[in-house]
């Protein structure tokens, strides 16, 4: 594992996506193809990112730690902190660009594609929990709770983990 290459994979994933989890499809494809991470490690770090304090996008710190220890966590943190600085350029130009169809279209297209690729990548994580009535019922229940918007998302994750222990 070359640390610079590893950093580039993380940076690239965040630079060319939006939101804290928009980097997942790109990271998933690149790291798994090189066997630098497993489906299971992605599932673990996403879970920890949801229950730990701060932005959920810090899940990459957890992914870095799980796959490469303290060095990996540092690289994950750097790759999370650098891309949002582009907002300073946007701030300077905002009055000029905010109503430009090219800009709004670009951002819209990226959001749509992040969602499209995300929906393809994320069900793969289910392989590591095993299909069965328990998996399917937790999946369905968490979706209903998320759509209803009445329960904080981290509570859904914690509740599902407890359910996993109870139904062991």
């Amino acid at each position: 594992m070359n640390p610079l290459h590893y950093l580039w994979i993380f940076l690239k994933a965040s630079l060319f996506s939006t939101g804290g989890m928009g980097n997942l499809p790109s990271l998933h494809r690149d790291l798994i193809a090189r066997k630098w991470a497993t489906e299971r490690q992605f599932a673990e770090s996403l879970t920890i990112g949801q229950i730990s304090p701060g932005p959920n996008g810090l899940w990459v710190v957890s992914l870095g730690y799980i796959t490469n220890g303290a060095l990996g966590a540092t690289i994950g943190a750097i790759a999370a902190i650098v891309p949002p600085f582009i907002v300073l350029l946007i701030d300077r130009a905002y009055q000029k660009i905010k109503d430009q169809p090219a800009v709004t279209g670009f951002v819209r297209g990226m959001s749509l594609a992040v969602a499209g690729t995300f929906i393809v990548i994320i069900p793969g994580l289910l392989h590591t929990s095993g299909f069965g009535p328990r998996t399917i019922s937790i999946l369905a229940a968490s979706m209903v709770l998320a759509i209803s918007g009445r329960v904080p998302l981290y509570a859904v994750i914690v509740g599902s983990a407890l359910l996993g222990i109870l139904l062991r």
Partner: protein
Amino acid sequence: MDSTGTASRIDLTYFFTVWLKIGLQSFGGGISTFALIREAAIRKFQWVTEEEFLEIWAMVQVAPGINLIALTILLGKRSFGNRGMVAALIGLLLPTVLLTALITAVYTKVQHLPITEAAIRGAIPAIVGLGIVTSVQTIMPLLRSAVRDNRPTLDLLVYLLIVVGSACAAARNIAPIFTILLASAFSSGVYSVVTSRRQSRAHLDEEPL
């Protein structure tokens, strides 16, 4: 001169501790972090007005990466310049990054216990479920606004084409993900430019001479 220097230094130290507190209180992930930042920025300390906050949030949506970090960068910069930006970022991220790493370190020590295994097996379907719902929720407002637009069917078709096309491209592994995302963004940008030109030309044609 000297006294204002000292005063602003005290203010900056205080500013830093406010962000440190936000970081330490932000259990519950992104939504509670956002609520704490908003509360501090608009109500408690009035760094920005509600309108300014909304405009900053709109810019943040355009920036790559974690929205809350971009938000912190701009709020810090607007309040105390570059030093404020650094203070806010360190305040928010020092506790949250360290706690995330610490929780992960503890996890790796206990991950082979049967109880941890059972907990993770319970959490994985929930992560997948939340991920699917969040993705659909980011698409829906765009599709809805397309329906409300003056060219409902064409916009809707193009948006759906981007979602389905990028999903198929990822599923069949025909290109790196970031290529798929950039290609989608560029084609959507071009589409917006072309349709807005055509619209303004049509608008001009309607004008009686």
